[in-house]
Each structure stands twice: as C-alpha cells, then as structure tokens.
C-alpha cells in the first residue's frame, strides 16, 4: 500500500479521534477482555494448565450462549513460567495495555501477593481462584478457593479419629506452607492432639532422605503434607521407596491438586486423605453435564479436573453473574453486584459469595486416594470462610487492604 500524505492524515486523525473519545464510546461491538495469568510452564505448570483449560471452557461456553451484555469475551492468556517477576509485568500489561475487565490468575500465594497491589493500584478487578491459607481482605479481590476453616478444620478430626493424635507436618517454605501449617497445628491442638514438628522445604528441594529418617524417629501417628510443586513430588516417591507408606499414613492440603495421584503409582500414594471443594466424581447433574462438556472439549482421556481448575471455572462464572446483575463491566458496579451475595449452581454444588469477606460459601468433601482416583468419603454442605470472617469485614471497613495471618 502506498501511503500518501492525504491517507496518512486521515489515518492519524482517525486514531487521534479514537483516543479522544475513549474506548467506551464504541465499545458495544468490541469484545470484553478477560486476562488469565497462570503458570503454563515451569515447576508450577502441574497446577496452571488445568486452570487455563477450565477458564477456556468457561469463556467458550459464555460466548456460545451469546456472550455478556451482548458482547463476546476475549480471553487473553499470559504464561508466567513459574517466575514471580513475570507476574508483575503481565499484571501491568493486562491492566494498562489490554484494559481487561477482570484478571483471573495467580497460583501460589506468593504470586497472588505480587499481583494484588498492582491490580489495586490500576483499579482492575481481580479473582484469585486457588485454595489457599485464607485471610486476604481486599475489596478489589474475590477469592473463590477454599481456606483452612473449610478444609483443614474438617480433615484434622477425621484423620485423627482414624489414625491417632500425634502429627508431623511437612510444608512448602513460603507464605502458603508457613500459614497453613499453623492452621493445622491449631486444629490438631483443639482436637486434643499434638504436632511433634513442622519442617519447611524450599520449592526446589528434592532430597528428603534426612527428613524421612527424622519423621521415623519422631514416630507420629500420621504425616500432614502441605508440599507444593513438581520438585516436592519426590517426597512422596522417597517416602514410598523407604517403605513408610504402609506404616505411617498421610493427609494433605495440597496433594492431588496438581494430579500427583495420577503422576505417582497407586503403590506410592493409595490411602492418602485430602479435603477439597471439588472432585471430578461428584454426583450431581450440573457436574455430570460439566464433565461431559469438558471431555468433549479437551478429550475423553483428560486425566482429571482438579480442584484449582474448578475454582477457576466457578470464579469466571461468579464474575459473569456479577456482570449480568450490574449490567456493566465497570469495576465498582460489578463489585457492588457481587457483594449482594450472588450464587451460582456450580458443578461442585451451590457457591455463594460472602459479601463481608469476598470469599465463598461452598460444599467441601473428604476423599481418599484410591488407584489413581479420588474416592469421596464424607460431605460437608455449605461451609463458611470463618477463618477470614473472624478478622475481615469489608462491609464495615471497605478500605481494609491486607492479608491477616493466624496468631497462635
């Protein structure tokens, strides 16, 4: 194309005009941008890939149903490569360049604390869809994952009744593991038990030999694992290789979230207890329809829809429900609509936003690892995020902005 002066002036004028009127002037036909910021490679990709798949399906379903407010939704994917610096960069890019209506993302608590201030500063709505240690109190953020009061509180007495009162905790060495292990300690003590030791491991540790010997010396009734990421899978391998799986059982707040129960052989992890909001084998109509749709989209051999994948799927649906109610994608209007206590009928059961904490009221289940499957043993309906509710009230203090940490 030849650019003469007249064409150049016309083009420039059009661009300048567009800039002056802003994007909202002709936005009706433009798609709504939604950002996904997840680790699709690196040590945390075991968590990130299923989350993005679930988000992709949620967006495609919404678009097939006519989009939101008559507009299509455009999902913009950022791969943070298990690298914290990229979180800052991509959060800024999503907020400033792509001007997204909402960011869904963050996997580890460390990554959430990296992007939370960025999205606060640039006034971009943020959904954190991972089960985590609880306590985040920030009006710009919604947390759709389960927290310790919903899971640890149920699993501790269940495991103690089954195995005994003495617990040894191994946890990942960053805010998630540090805080979650304190919750484990709190509930174990409240149930009349004893935590003999809590050991922390950086995410790249792969040699657990000395720890396994130390655990044997401590002779606990069971081990609690809050280990995170690909490198820590070797703990379960070495545990089984040392022949410990049969003598000391294990419960976990993180196992199977990255499909570890499929990566490992049944011999290395059968009998382990976990507690989450979602399991693929839950029996209800919404879930059966979801699993069929998911397998149709990603193949029937898809290993397992994880807790985090479902958190992300439900997070998107909650946001979409908020947008429908607000009849706008404006950040404040959507927050106010979500704060009316919106509910969805999700594959995991009924999920309701708790207005005071921006967390969710939802069902949880205890399950057991059994031959690469998760067998549900016990159900708890409609659990409130009471850990965060004890410290956080965004109705009374809408400007509160911090993560509360458990004190024992």
């Amino acid at each position: 194309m030849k650019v003469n002066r007249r064409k150049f002036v016309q083009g420039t004028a059009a661009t300048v005009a567009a800039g002056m009127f802003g994007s909202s002037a002709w936005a009706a036909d433009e798609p709504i941008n939604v950002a996904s910021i997840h680790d699709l490679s690196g040590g945390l990709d075991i968590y990130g890939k299923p989350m993005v798949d679930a988000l992709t399906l949620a967006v495609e379903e919404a678009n097939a149903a006519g989009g939101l407010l008559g507009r299509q939704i455009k999902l913009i994917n950022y791969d943070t490569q298990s690298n914290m610096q990229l979180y800052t960069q991509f959060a800024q890019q999503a907020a400033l360049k792509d001007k997204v209506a909402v960011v869904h993302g963050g996997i580890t608590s460390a990554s959430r604390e990296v992007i939370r201030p960025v999205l606060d500063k640039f006034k971009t709505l943020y959904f954190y869809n991972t089960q985590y240690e609880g306590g985040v109190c920030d009006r710009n953020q919604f947390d759709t994952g389960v927290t310790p009061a919903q899971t640890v509180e149920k699993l501790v007495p269940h495991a103690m009744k089954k195995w005994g009162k003495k617990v040894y905790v191994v946890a990942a060495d960053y805010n998630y593991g540090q805080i979650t292990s304190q919750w484990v300690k709190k509930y174990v003590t409240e149930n009349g038990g004893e935590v003999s030791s809590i050991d922390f491991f950086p995410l790249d540790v792969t040699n657990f030999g000395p720890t396994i010997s130390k655990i044997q010396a401590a002779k606990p009734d069971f081990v609690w694992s809050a280990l995170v990421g690909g490198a820590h899978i070797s703990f379960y391998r070495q545990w089984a290789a040392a022949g410990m799986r049969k003598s000391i059982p294990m419960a976990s707040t993180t196992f199977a979230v990255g499909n570890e129960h499929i990566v490992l052989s049944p011999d290395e992890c059968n009998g382990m207890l976990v507690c989450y909001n979602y399991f693929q084998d839950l029996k209800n109509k919404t879930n059966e329809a979801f699993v069929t749709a998911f397998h149709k989209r990603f193949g029937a051999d898809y290993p397992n829809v994880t807790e985090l994948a479902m958190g992300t799927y439900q997070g998107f649906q909650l946001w979409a429900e908020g947008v429908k109610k607000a009849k706008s994608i404006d950040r404040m209007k959507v927050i106010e609509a979500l704060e009316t206590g919106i509910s969805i009928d999700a594959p995991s059961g009924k999920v309701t936003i708790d207005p005071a904490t921006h967390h969710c009221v939802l069902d949880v289940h205890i399950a057991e690892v059994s031959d690469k499957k998760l067998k549900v043993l016990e159900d708890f309906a409609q659990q409130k995020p009471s850990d965060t509710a004890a410290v956080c009230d965004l109705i009374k203090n809408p400007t509160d902005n911090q993560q509360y940490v458990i004190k024992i």
Partner: protein
Amino acid sequence: MDFVVLLAIQVLYAVASLALISVGLAIIFGMMRVINLAHGEFLMLGGYAAIVATSNGVNIWIAMLVVAPLVVGLIGIVVEMTIIRFLYGRMVDTMLATWGLSLFLVGLTTAIFGNTTVGISAPLGSFQIGAYRTSGYTLFVIAVAVVLMAGIFAVLRFTRLGLIARGTMQNANMAAALGVNPPRVYAVTFGIGAALSGLAGAVLAPVSGVFPTIGVAYVAKSFITVIGGGAAILSGTVSASVLFGTINQIATFLTTPVFGEVALLAAAIVLIRLLPQGITGRFFRRGL
C-alpha cells in the same frame, strides 16, 4: 543404635551423591583445565536418557547404567569436537562457550520434553534397620559411587590409557613428543567425563525426578566439591565429598534442609580461605 546406623547410611548417601555428581566435572577440569559450565546439563541429559529409555521398555538398570552414559558420552564427544577443541587454553572463552551450551541444552530439552517434572519410581523396595525403614535404592547409589571411584582409580593407576591420560595432563607437549596424540586424548577424556555425568544424572533421576533446569541444582554443588577438592581428581573429589556431604547431612538432621545447604556453603568458604589450593593442595598431594 539403629538410628545411628540410619544416620550413617544417610551421610554415606550424601557423600556418594556428591562424589557422583562431581567426578565427571573433576575429570574434565582436572585433566584439561576446561571449566565446563554445561556440567549440570550433562547430568540432566543423563536423567532424561534413562527415563526415556525406561518408558520405551528398556530394563531400568540397563537404561541407567548403560544407555545414559553412552548417550551423554557421545554428546560429550560431539561437544568437544565442535566447540571445546578450538578453545583449549582460553579459560574465559570456554566458560562463555559452555555457558551458552548450557542455555541451549536447557532450551532444547524444554522444547522437546516440556518444562515439567518427570520421574520413575525407585526400584529395590525398602529394608528394615531396627525400628526404622529406609530405601534399598539408597544403598544402590552408595554402591555405584564406590564401584565408580574404584574403577577410575584402577584405570588411572594400572592401565596404559590411564598412564597416557596422566602423562598428557602433566605435560601435553612432552606426551606429544613421545608419540601420544593429545587432541585425541582430550576428546576421549571429555567423552568419559560427560559419560560419568550422564551416569550420575541417571542414577539420581529416580530419587529427585528430572526437569530441564535441574542442572542448576547440581552444578553449584559439583563446582564447590571440585574446587574444594583441589588438583587431584580422585582423592580431591572423594575427600571433598566426604567433608561436605557429612557436614550437609548432619546439619540437615539437626535443623532443616535449608540450614543443611547453608552449612555446606559456609564450610566451603572456610575451607577455601584456609586451603586456597583445595584439600589436595595440602593433603594427599601424591594421590591421583
């Protein structure tokens, strides 16, 4: 008592794994004064070679003890002929070149295998020591290290190949005058060093799993061991492994794995301050 035995096995295991991951580097560095920054990636490739071979139906022992060293040894010879050969005596240039090679290998394996942890279950089951249990594979790793060190000693000390290698190492020009072909000795030595690294990576793969950037976790430790050991290949590697492995493992037992690593690094700093030439600069000077 049984706990002491268990502790001793863990310490021996730490020593053995340090010696395994360092000996390939020690040979390449000690013989040729080449600082191979792609050493960690040789270990990583060994791990992948073993896992890929096992998942394609090769017996796990053959995969670890034969396939992995062969594959990585061949890669080592190719690397020597295409890159290292032109840079002998130019230490900084070899460091740059091998660093580039390291980045290239990480990128290549990420492209082929993806950036995920893969692993195989450790064979051999477990056994009982009094009230404790530990993995039989731990003893296997210790045995491999012992056999390997004895083998290297025998080759260097008693064979013609070892004599030629030691001669070339001491004075390449004199060896050439006596009819040895130093470039060929270098190529073979580099290949053997790489093969040993591949073997170590494969043997440790069932314990730690493998991912493209795992070399980073190994390379620092192996450099510390080689530098701490000093000029003699075998006695240096062994003595430094014993020292650092024991300190690391005991500190890990008493505190946490984090402080175990800190203790290892602190010991290395103190050692290099007291013995700038490494352990074999002062002790075992006549060792191999």
